[in-house]
């Protein structure tokens, strides 16, 4: 059994949207509402759901870009050889945490400073964390460019982002995330802006890097077909909650929750002879799920490490 890299326990992130004290009442948006999952070393978890379901807020809460309202985020601390809550970290440890947790964003066009060369872009994290001498830093940049398939690296060092194609830019973004040798990388729709022919090469690159460097991914996407290709397990999110979590093929072949069924049936199939039928959620289906278990706090395991939420979820009908 591989050790966990990250464990999320009952994470809640609420946003206050009250309209001021004179209007009365306190309004909150429960962007992330009591979710738990863990990711083992070298494994990837897909976080799948519609726009606005809380996928990105989850990612931002884990990386401390957003302050969580409640819950616990535990990260494997190498120096102490145990799982440590990020709330208990000292300033130095937070720096260490940030080294080990990196993010790759959706839009490679906006994620880079247009006035910085590729070398500056990839070098920045090394400078911030004060790692190595100038010479070592430059060698590290050359090495990582090779790793992400931008060869020969010398051709890229002094170029600017606008001189690169979308696929090349996303490779630079991956290089920048991986140069810190992180344990855990959060990818927020990293291929949705890329053309199909380039998309696969980026996905293949990420899969092979995960194997070689033993990196774990949290892979955020709204496209289950992409998640199927990338991830060992998939968590389906709706309205701030995880409604179902299982091994990828198990989830796709044997979906339990009506929302998962709906989501799967909404994906276009690249086969004109395939008669896709959209699954319509019925009241009966929802009641059946709610009656599976009385314990509404945790996900209910139907066996085979396949978990489903028995919560009453609003807005599905």
């Amino acid at each position, binding site marked *: 059994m591989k050790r966990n890299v990250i464990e999320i326990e009952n994470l809640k992130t609420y946003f206050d949207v009250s309209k001021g004290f004179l209007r009365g009442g306190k309004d909150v948006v429960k962007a992330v509402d009591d979710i738990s999952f863990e990711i083992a070393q070298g494994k990837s978890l897909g976080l799948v759901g519609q726009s606005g379901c809380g996928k990105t807020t989850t990612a931002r809460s884990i990386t401390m870009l957003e302050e969580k309202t409640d819950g616990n985020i535990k990260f494997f601390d190498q120096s102490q050889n145990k799982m440590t809550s990020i709330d208990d970290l000292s300033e130095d440890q937070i720096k260490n945490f940030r080294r080990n947790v990196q993010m790759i964003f959706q839009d490679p066009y906006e994620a880079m400073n247009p006035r910085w060369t590729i070398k500056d872009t990839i070098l920045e994290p090394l400078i911030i964390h004060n790692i190595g001498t100038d010479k070592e830093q430059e060698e590290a940049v050359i090495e990582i460019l090779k790793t992400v398939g931008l060869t020969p690296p010398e051709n890229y060092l002094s170029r600017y982002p606008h001189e690169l194609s979308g696929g090349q830019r996303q490779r630079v973004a991956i290089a920048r995330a991986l140069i810190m040798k992180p344990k855990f990388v959060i990818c927020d729709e990293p291929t949705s802006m890329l*053309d199909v022919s380039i998309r*696969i090469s980026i996905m293949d690159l990420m899969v092979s890097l995960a194997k070689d460097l033993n990196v774990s991914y949290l892979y955020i996407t709204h496209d289950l077909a992409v998640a199927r*290709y990338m991830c060992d397990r998939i968590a389906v999110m709706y309205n701030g909650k995880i409604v179902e979590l299982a091994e990828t093929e198990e989830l796709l072949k044997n979906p339990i929750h009506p929302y998962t069924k709906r*989501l799967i049936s909404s994906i*276009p*199939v690249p086969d004109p*002879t395939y008669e896709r039928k959209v699954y319509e959620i019925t009241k009966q289906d929802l009641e059946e799920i709610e009656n599976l278990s009385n314990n509404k706090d945790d996900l209910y395991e139907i066996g085979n490490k396949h978990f489903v939420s028995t919560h009453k979820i609003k807005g599905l009908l």
Partner: protein
Amino acid sequence: MKNILEVKNLNMEYRTLEGNVKAIQDVSFSIPLNSSFGLVGESGCGKTSVAMSLLQLQADNAEIISGNIIYDGKDIVSLNEEELRKVRWFGISIVFQGAMNAWNPVIKIGEQIREAIREHYPNNTKKDNTDTIQDLFKLVGLDSSNIDRYPHELSGGMKQRAVIALALSCKPKLIIADEPTTALDVVIQDQILKEIRKIQNDLGLSLLYISHDIAVIAEMTDYMGVMYAGRIVEKGPTKEIFANPRHSYTKALLESTPSIVGDKVKLNSLDGEPPSLMGKIDGCSFAPRCPNRNTTCNPEEKMELIEVSPEHFVDICSANR
């Protein structure tokens, strides 16, 4: 079968300071009445340039070098501005890529649609127009309360539905949909696609559907053309192309698209990038990336489409393979 639109040997160039960009090269296709035609290809292959030239909405620096666009027996390329106005909206209307962000934020949605109708039917009474808008909203599955809403009060999917209502407002015969669901998530995309298909059937419209997603093309279209570097490299009935893809680029597109059904298969990527469309282009522009290139290939050979089975055309190099 009667065609609603025929594009014949269309060539279009963009004039830029660095030189001329051959965005559309020798593109020919036709859309049979009441059916749908899909154009698929990666960014920059010329899909949107084709859509824009069909309505003569191309950028100022674009010039149609040669070719005809025959709609309803008339050549759109030679029409003057007044005649064009009649073809636009009444004949052909378009749903742009990311059109949901094109609404004027300070005017109510209904008012913006009313403006378009008033422009084209100046004799209608206000009551007529209100009725029309209500019917349109019903058609695209929007509640009529949204007529008096501002764009920011609607979600992305609702705004896109309203754009489709706008495109239908003057009862066109052909709708061009240029990546109408690209910015939307899968569930909303599915609803919009269903809506477009339903409207197309109910109103007997013809559809030109443009997308980079071959899965969407599979579901939406009867006929399709695969575009690469400004040319159509393969075209024919959608089912036939999916069953018997002949061009290496079509095969590459199919092999690189992940699917949710069937067994998990290894996908293949396509290395390299599309060529620059500037300057002189001879022969097969796909040759540098072609996985099936062999010694019998002659990249200098002038490309033309050859019919390999009924209605199925492919570039000469792949036809002989």
